């Protein structure tokens, strides 16, 4: 017990080690706040050049957490540091791209670039130079003199990101940047994010696209009901949710009565029903519960469609369901 407490204490001490302050682009400690005090006791740290995803079920507080960090929502307590300093002092090294389009559709792409560049202290030449480079990277270089209102949905999202990062920030916050984008646009954007990361920027984003986040992000922070659920890579999440196998099972002649019997059995034996679609059930179990599940399956006529290791989406279902 003493050892455990001591380890915990030392770990905390290490977390806020003064010598290491400034090493991390973002450090959040015991953060509380947001609308209806949604965010509770969130602590995490983002490393340099991380592509860091904040994920969680709808309404879990991803955007609120991001907005508290950026000072857009009020925090009740806790510490937030960017490169060891107050967020307020690091505005010139930061960028935020809101989920909804936030440029002026009445202006041309060039005019928007000039406006947002100037807001971040860039000269006209500097803004146009940076803007043109980014437009080229995002395959929009021929759109510079077009009115922003006539751009396609994907192009508008790309412009939304471009106008946010003209000042070459080191720490970039993107709120749901892939919402409503097709595969082509998402791919283009992930490639762009990777380039930014290679260029030395740290990207923090919120997303629902778990498979893509798993593929493209170094680390993920899973938020649930405003609290940190787990942080790390997929393995860390898997360890936390304690999920080893996913059974996809199709029951024959399923009735309401049978369904209730299955649910009751699962409740008693702590077997997770991650999802169900009429007669197809997805069971999530750890190694220890495998025998119990097989006992259940023997009772009902069924066909096992697949037994596999959980993917990120399955882990997420477990997070949402827990």
């Amino acid at each position, binding site marked *: 017990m003493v050892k455990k407490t001591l380890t915990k204490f030392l770990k905390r001490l290490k977390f806020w080690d003064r010598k290491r302050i400034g090493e991390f682009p973002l450090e959040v400690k015991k953060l509380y706040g947001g609308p209806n005090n949604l965010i509770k006791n969130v602590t995490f740290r983002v490393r340099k050049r991380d592509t860091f995803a904040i994920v969680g079920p709808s309404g879990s507080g991803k955007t609120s957490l991001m907005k508290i960090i950026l000072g857009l929502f009020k925090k009740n307590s806790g510490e937030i540091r960017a490169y060891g300093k107050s967020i307020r002092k690091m505005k010139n090294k930061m960028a*935020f791209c*809101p989920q909804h389009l936030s440029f002026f559709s009445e202006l041309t792409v060039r005019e928007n670039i000039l406006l947002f560049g100037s*807001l971040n202290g860039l000269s006209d030449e500097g803004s146009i130079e940076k803007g043109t480079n980014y437009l080229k990277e995002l395959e929009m270089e021929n759109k510079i003199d077009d009115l922003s209102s006539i751009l396609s949905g994907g192009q508008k999202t790309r412009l939304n990101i471009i106008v946010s990062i003209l000042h070459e920030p080191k720490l970039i916050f993107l709120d749901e940047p892939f919402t409503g984008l097709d595969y082509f646009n998402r791919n283009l954007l992930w490639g762009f994010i990777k380039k930014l990361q290679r260029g030395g920027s740290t990207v923090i984003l919120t997303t629902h696209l778990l498979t893509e986040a798993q593929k493209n992000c170094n680390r993920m922070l899973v938020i649930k009901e405003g609290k940190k659920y787990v942080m790390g890579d997929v393995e860390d999440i898997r360890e936390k949710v304690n999920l080893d196998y996913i059974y996809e099972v199709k029951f024959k002649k399923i009735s309401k009565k049978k369904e209730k019997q299955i649910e009751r059995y699962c409740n008693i034996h702590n077997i997770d029903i991650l999802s169900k679609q009429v007669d197809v059930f997805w069971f999530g179990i750890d190694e220890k519960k495998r025998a119990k599940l097989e006992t259940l399956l023997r009772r009902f006529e069924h066909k096992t469609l697949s037994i596999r290791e959980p993917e990120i989406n399955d882990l997420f279902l477990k997070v949402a369901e827990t």
Partner: protein
Amino acid sequence: MKIKLPNSKLKSLLLKEYLLLLRKKKFLVMVLALPIIFGVFYQTSMTMEPGIAINVGVCNLDPSEHSSSLVSELSSVFSVTQYSEPCDENLARGVRDTEIFLGLLVPEDFFQKLSTLNKSDIFIYYDNSNPVLSNYLDFFFQLSIKNYENALLRQAGDVVKTETQKADLIISSAYTVLDSIRFLGYGISSVADQVQEIQQALNTIEAMDISFVTEPVVVNKVGAYDLKNESGISAALIFGILSLFTALLLVSSNILSDKEDNFIIRLKVSKTSSVTYLLSKIIFFDFVLIFQYMAVFPLFLSASWLNVNIFALVFSLIIVASINVLMGILIGLFSENQAIAVLTALLLTLPFLFMSGMFYPRELFPPPLKFISDVFPLSNEITLLKQSMVFGYDFSLNSTMVQLNLMYLICFFVVAWLLLRFKQH
């Protein structure tokens, strides 16, 4: 022909409107408050009696009883204070120093003219920079001397009647005397006397000014101020109101569109400060408001504008426009959507107009209302504009009105900055 209404669809649409209205609390409050406030102000402005005693200064140079009865007639409506000579100087000063609202000068020959059935002049000294107040007081004054004028007319009628009866009587006697002469050759000198009397009686009637019957007492209005630019009075009022209306509606919707486009969020995370943002709004909309004013300016253009200090004029326009722009910004920051912003702007505009003395002279408000009126920005904005546009004051930071308006400007700026800085958007 039977008309079939789409009952269920109509019902659903109506229900949707009702529920949306019900769920937007601010909107609901505004919708209910608007007719109440408009109704109260309209009713009040239509029926309001003066909330304080109206002080009138009287300088009576006519020693006759008639002039005293005029003064006593006034006393029944106004609170009368006696002023001594030099009348014109003292009465004008009294109006300027706001000791009195009106000054009345009764000239020496007041009764003498009336006694010969001629129109007689009186002079009233009034605040010629305040048309609302002077029109209101003029109405009251005319009303108050109406009884006196009626009495005068009755007396004049009596005089005419007496003189005519007298002439008639003398003419009858003259006929009798003429008959005596014809038969007895008697009393030639007596006839001559009587004809002379007739002539005198007829002269009195002849000398009567016919317009005396319609207006026995002529009220001459004398402005208490030596105005440098009289056309500035309406110009000051129009700029004050026009800029208030435009700023509240235009600026609040502009701020809302910035909020809806997430521009304020971008601004807050950018290097650009909230102060720069507010300044940009103030400068731009000041320009719009002053430009808009310049478009109507030719209507008031006269040579007298050359008498005012252009620097002071421009400065007062900028201060007033900036205050109104900041109020628009506050409404925009406070409102969640365009509908609430428009209703809030309307909700503020009418009390502002009423309190500024547009419909009813604020100088005559009851003390608590007068205090509110003194605190409301529009009244002080119009006073500041008048100082530069009408009186041709130079700009001075020592002026109370400049200080007061600058205080509004600073207060509104600080509140707008705080809202922008700390309100969650």
